[in-house]
């Protein structure tokens, strides 16, 4: 799309202004909650800021897309769709990179601000998640690295098992 012609000098950049503020900033507070006997059963943390990009293969390009994503942290997010996640990238960088790389074979949309990823981990993580999702998270059924689209507490979530006792919940 046409960049508007530059005519004036950029507006003054106030450094702090560029800092991203997590939508959960006021919710995800440090501290211990719930039953306070023994070691914590689960711990929550917000992975922020992140770069998150949806990649959807164009007609008949599923394989090609899958191949070109091999070098990324690309999580299954539906038929021939992926969430590509990366930390420490500057604003829009991952999006622009993938858009260039997948030009013509996939649609790329930046969701870095649209989704937030919550890391849930601990020995009781499966018991806690079972209160939300109908997906069977038993290790035999849901191995590390596997992702699922499901619902929790009336909200759609993208669930990824990132470790034996650790899951990422990606929500709008």
């Amino acid at each position, binding site marked *: *799309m*046409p*960049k*508007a*012609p*530059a*005519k*004036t*000098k*950029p*507006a*003054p*950049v*106030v450094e702090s*202004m*560029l800092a*991203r*503020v*997590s*939508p959960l900033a*006021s919710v995800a507070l440090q501290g211990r909650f*719930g*039953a306070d006997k023994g070691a914590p059963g689960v711990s929550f943390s917000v992975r922020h*800021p992140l770069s998150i990009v*949806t990649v*959807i*293969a*164009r*007609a008949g390009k599923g394989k090609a897309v899958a191949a070109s994503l091999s070098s990324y942290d690309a999580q299954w997010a539906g038929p021939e*769709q992926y969430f590509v996640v990366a930390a420490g990238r500057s*604003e*829009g960088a991952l999006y622009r990179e993938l858009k260039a790389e997948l030009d013509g074979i996939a*649609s790329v*949309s*930046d*969701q*870095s*601000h*649209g*989704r937030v990823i919550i890391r849930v981990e601990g020995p009781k993580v499966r*018991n806690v998640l*079972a*209160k939300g*999702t*109908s997906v*069977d998270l*038993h290790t035999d*059924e849901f191995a590390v690295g596997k992702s699922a689209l499901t619902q929790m*507490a*009336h*909200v759609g979530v993208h669930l990824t098992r990132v470790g034996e006792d650790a899951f990422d919940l990606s929500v*709008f």
Partner: protein
Amino acid sequence: MTSYRLPKGGLIDRATTLNFKFDGKSFTGHAGDTLASALIANGVHLMGRSFKYHRPRGVISAGASEPNALVELREGGRKEANTRATMIELYDGLTAKSQNRWPSLDFDIGAINSLVSSMFVAGFYYKTFMWPKSFWEKIYEPIIRRAAGLGTASREADPDKYEKSYAHCDLLVIGSGPTGLMAALAAARSGGRVILADESSRLGGSLLDEREEIDGVSGLEWAEGVIAELSAMPNVTLMPRATVFGWYDGNIFGAVERVNDHVLAPSVHEPRQRYWRIIAKRAVLAAGAEERPVAFGGNDIPGVMLASAMRTYANRYAAAAGKSVVVFTGNDSGYRTARDMKAHGVHVEAIVDSRGGTKADAGGVPVLRGRMIADVSGGKAVTGITLDDHTHLACDAVAMSGGWSPVVNLACHRGAKPSWNDTILGFVAPDVGKDFIVAGSAAGRMLLSECLADGAKAGTLKGRAPAIPKCRDEAFAVSPLWWVRQAQGKAFIDYQNDSIAKDLPLAAREGYRDIELAKRYTTTGMATDQGKLGNVNAIAILAEATGRSMDQVGTTTFRPFYTPVAFGAFAGPFTGHHFQPVRKTPLHDWADELGAVFVETGLWMRSSWFPREGEDWLASASREVVATRERVGICDVSTLGKIDVQGKDAGAFLDRLYCNTFSTLAVGKARYGLMLREDGVVYDDGTTSRLAEDHYVMTTTTANAAKVMAQMEFAHQALFPDLDVTYVSVTEQWAQMAIAGPKSRATIQKIVDGLEMNDQTVPYMAALDISVLGGVPARLFRLSFSGEHAYELAVPADYGNMVARAIMQAGAEFGIVPYGVEALSIMRIEKGHVAGGELNGTTTAADLGLGKMMSTKKDYIGRVMAGREGLVDPQRQCAVGIRPMNADDRIRSGAHILTQGDKPSMANDQGYITSVAWSPMLEMCIGLALVANGRARHGEVVQVWDGLRGHKVEGVICDPVHFDKENRRLHA
């Protein structure tokens, strides 16, 4: 009072004494007691009053099927009506009240009902209370209603928490008696994921109640051993206090776990109950069998109970039902009660056996063969019995056994019907397939050895079944014993609903011969116990009365819930403020800082107005409008649905979705679009911008965002699968704000990077990719909903608040104001833009004055059906403007339109007002309306009829555009 606590035995912990109150009176019991067993141990038999006749009642059973001993447990917000004393685990500080009596349980006025009771036959109320007509609602019904119901529900909010959870397993075992334990053991040993659920407080089933011997140890010790092995296995989940209440499609079982009902109050962070949805590859129903009462006179007098219940009270709870007992039975299990009671040192007067010759072991108790109890004497307690041969025996408790009914409920929840079995004299479960197996006594296997073997077989998922332990079998021989006709007094079938044996022949006589009709006419089986005890007796009596077999009569339909479930368990955490998720926009904090008032719009909280000191919503919204139209205002429009549409056929796809065309839209431009349903009615609207040849971003209304997305998915995947297009919601990625007013350009100019804004660089309907504040990526659209020179600016959500604050700074010199949804809505009504009120799911494009948008050059959803005569009829109601004749008059949306001079009537109804606002620009009420043939009626004076609010004024129909008809301000 003398104690009925047996000196030794029982599964109670005599070391811990618990205090409790019943009807205000203090008692003590022991850990392991139920409220019922503790009361019995204290010699209290009178625990409740019956529904219709207010008869004094005590326990009939020792379990979940209890129809009589229902109490109000706890107080305040925790008060629970109709709670079974037989299922309440005793805890220290327990308080309970008896129900359905006044002034007291002991002296209950309502008992006079039983005097005129002979008039209160089944269905009597269908036959009377009809005259005089007005009396029904004023007099009869209020009386009936007050009499109805048993317990009183609390009106205070429940302070406790509830939880929901899913569970998955290879085998769910329902019931933990010998059958269930063997099934669980077999499955667990073969490595399967096993869940063992039992509604009782302790696993073991009837092995806790009976004196059995298995593998040379007591049944109890054997059970303990198995439970210990199971609890040590990681693949096994043991769930005591968990009732499986229903079987649903996909072999999904509903269960409720009473996590904290056995304590005074749950500890913080712990739920009262947990609702489980168990997805089981296979399940075993090992629910056992239920003993049946017998219908004889006074079979409800406190002290009369099931033979197995009397055993359970003695064996499990060390509580004696009486000092001198008579057993009445038609099968061998009565003998067991006699022997057990004798072993506990309770005097057993006699066994009354309806059968002639039987050699069951009476353990030295005298047996009266071929005899029956006709009537029990006593009022609030048993004093004796009269046999069918009129001989009288004194006693203070009666144990009865009419036979056994397999507990088949769950197996029948999906429609299958049980069938009658003449050897066990009970209805046995139908075969419902390999995923749900009925085993043990629930399957009609009444011998312990059969149960053990059956359970092992049912639970074996792979490999060999475990060895079957050796045991001694109690004889099981039974013959029919339903109703003792010689009875003088009332012989109850459904204790709680007070339906008596005689009601059934009466129902048959009156034509209610089908068991389902008889049930409804006599209310048999409709009380809280759902006829667990009495239904089979009712079926037998009806069968006799109508000369049909048990199978011909059949059972009534088994339905969830096996036992009643608290609403709270189903609601779980989704109550109060957490009923539904709360969605906040990326600009929420910014709006909050500025004192916004937020209002629910679907799940969203939207900033509706920004009141200043002393302003109400109208003053605030009006000021926001004026300021915006005179200077500049900023509004949060982030809730609009935003969908990223890409691919080489993106344009073609949008052409199918919208009635107007998008493939021709120039890159860098936006266009308003209108979407129809396939039936030709308007579905949604919004602007769509073309960011690149193969890239559009469309916006939907807030309300329809999700629906439109689903519609696109269907259109693409099911209707037009060959189109090479992708679409994904990016609603949450962008914080979007409308900046409107004469000073909007000057304001935005101050924060954009490297762009001289003018009508060439940012023309009307432009859609540009820019950046603001030195590097924040942004999308700038020159769009206007307000009719002012206006823009919409979108920035990535995490920058939203910060950018909005920056715009407030930038606009400060121009006197910028934040405006909310109210002001937004006033301005759109001033401009005659249609919205929710007009897009009501019944209006066509033409109705809304947008007919010209409907392309004639392409196929699109809704095109053909929009052409139906009824949808193009000129008499249809279409969108117009409406104003009061007198500028000071008020009009309200929802008011209807009548032609001058017409009387109010539906036939004369011309339409109604869809939206109204008080316009600060025109200083009067203005509105939009849907009026029959409205476009031809501009200028017509009509009645604005609001009879609902007692308000009628004259109004005039006008053009929908109330303000700045020439759209000068848009391009100013």
